[in-house]
């Protein structure tokens, strides 16, 4: 195992971990979004979807643990890289020309990542906790659709949610192409296509998630 830890702690190893965990999280986001879109089908469709998940609960629990580990490794490694990279560049230039030649998304992964993390804590302590443990914050019932309407009819909660998923979009816009580059799966020929797909993916995910609280704010749900 010695070689594995040494390898994963090399610069490229740490990058590889970021790309691998990031890619798995990107896959998870697609599944999560598809599930959430059942909210557009109304109460029956959404509750039906969540109840299907209840049937396979043991599997869901295992996936949740794996996801948590992936998140923790991604965050731990991301913060470590950010800290080491800061130490490698202790002094700044009088004029910062980096703004002209690099993308906003790529310069702000630690900021967008940290905000996603704060949002994640909020998200788990509301939706996850109430779906799994406490039920509706007022009635205590496990009427899932009502829990969703309870939160998304609160403008402050919805706006925080929307801002967080839009920032997630920036993280993904950089992360998608970055993962390909980190894996070494990149050629001049198709790099522009990878970047384009990454931007489309980031738009679908962030606008897809953001559309739901907007829908509830506008219609109050069905």
């Amino acid at each position: 195992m010695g070689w594995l830890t040494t390898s994963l702690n090399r610069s490229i190893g740490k990058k590889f971990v970021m790309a691998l965990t990031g890619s798995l999280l990107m896959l998870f986001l697609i599944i999560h979004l598809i599930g959430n879109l059942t909210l557009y089908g109304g109460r029956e469709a959404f509750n039906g979807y969540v109840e299907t998940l209840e049937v396979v609960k043991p599997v869901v629990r295992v996936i949740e643990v794996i996801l948590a580990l992936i998140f923790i490794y991604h965050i731990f490694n991301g913060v470590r890289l950010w800290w080491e990279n800061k130490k490698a560049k202790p002094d700044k230039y009088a004029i910062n020309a980096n703004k002209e030649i690099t993308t906003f998304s790529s310069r702000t992964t630690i900021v967008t990542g940290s905000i996603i993390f704060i949002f994640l804590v909020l998200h788990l302590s509301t939706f996850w906790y109430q779906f799994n443990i406490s039920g509706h914050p007022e009635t205590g019932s496990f009427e899932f659709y009502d829990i969703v309407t309870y939160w998304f009819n609160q403008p402050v909660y919805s706006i925080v949610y929307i801002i967080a998923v839009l920032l997630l979009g920036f993280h993904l816009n950089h992360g998608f192409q970055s993962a390909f580059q980190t894996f070494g799966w990149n050629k001049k020929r198709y790099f522009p296509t990878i970047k384009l797909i990454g931007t489309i993916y980031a738009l679908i995910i962030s606008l897809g998630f953001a559309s739901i609280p907007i829908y509830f704010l506008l219609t109050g749900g069905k």
Partner: protein
Amino acid sequence: MSGEHLNITLKIWRQNSPNDNGQFEEFKVSISPDASILEMLDELNNNLEREGKRPVAFESDCREGICGTCGIVINGHPHGPLPKTATCQLHMRNFKDGDVIYLEPFRAAAFPIIRDLIVDRSAFDKIQQAGGYISFNTGGAPDANTIPIGKDVAAEALDAAECIGCGACVAACKNSSAMLFVGAKVSQYALLPQGQPERYKRVQTMVAAMDEAGFGSCTNTYACEAECPKGISIMNIARMNRDFIKSKIVEQEVDI
């Protein structure tokens, strides 16, 4: 030749020794647009010496863009604002009368400042010594084309070999990552038959030396490619990543 002299205000980083706190010092110069940045500094230094002041320390050698010795951060751009141009090849005609120009050394923890605009880039030598060569004797030069190499492959290897080891990629990177340099050095051998026997060992030893020297990790922001005076492509970093991962999984010869 062309035009009037330009009046330029220079803000130059002055730092006596590695542990000193440096600061910018202002100079006013009037310079021909045909002079290069380095010739302007030569003229400034002549004047400073005449006045009995300490001249500005900077490095240069070939002054034709091939040795990689020169390297100044000019208005935030390593080697200046002109793409694919080394400092020594940058002429004052690219600036306007009345411009203020900031001249700073490359900044990176792995490149300590020696004096003024000169930094210690011996970390690059250590990376090279860790595997940037072919260790068997190739004998006399063989006849051309005895080992057939496709034109596209040869071109890509030569593009990688264009790296002059100047360190601008490190200077440009917000993480002081040296991955463009190491990617180029790894690639120039990885693409050619002569580099194959040591291909996967090389990538491991060079990456290890890079990490030990205190360079940061690439976050794929690609500032390096934009600032590199030789236009080295980030696809060389992708190749290095690919070979490194392969070396660990399928092609591993040694554990490093």
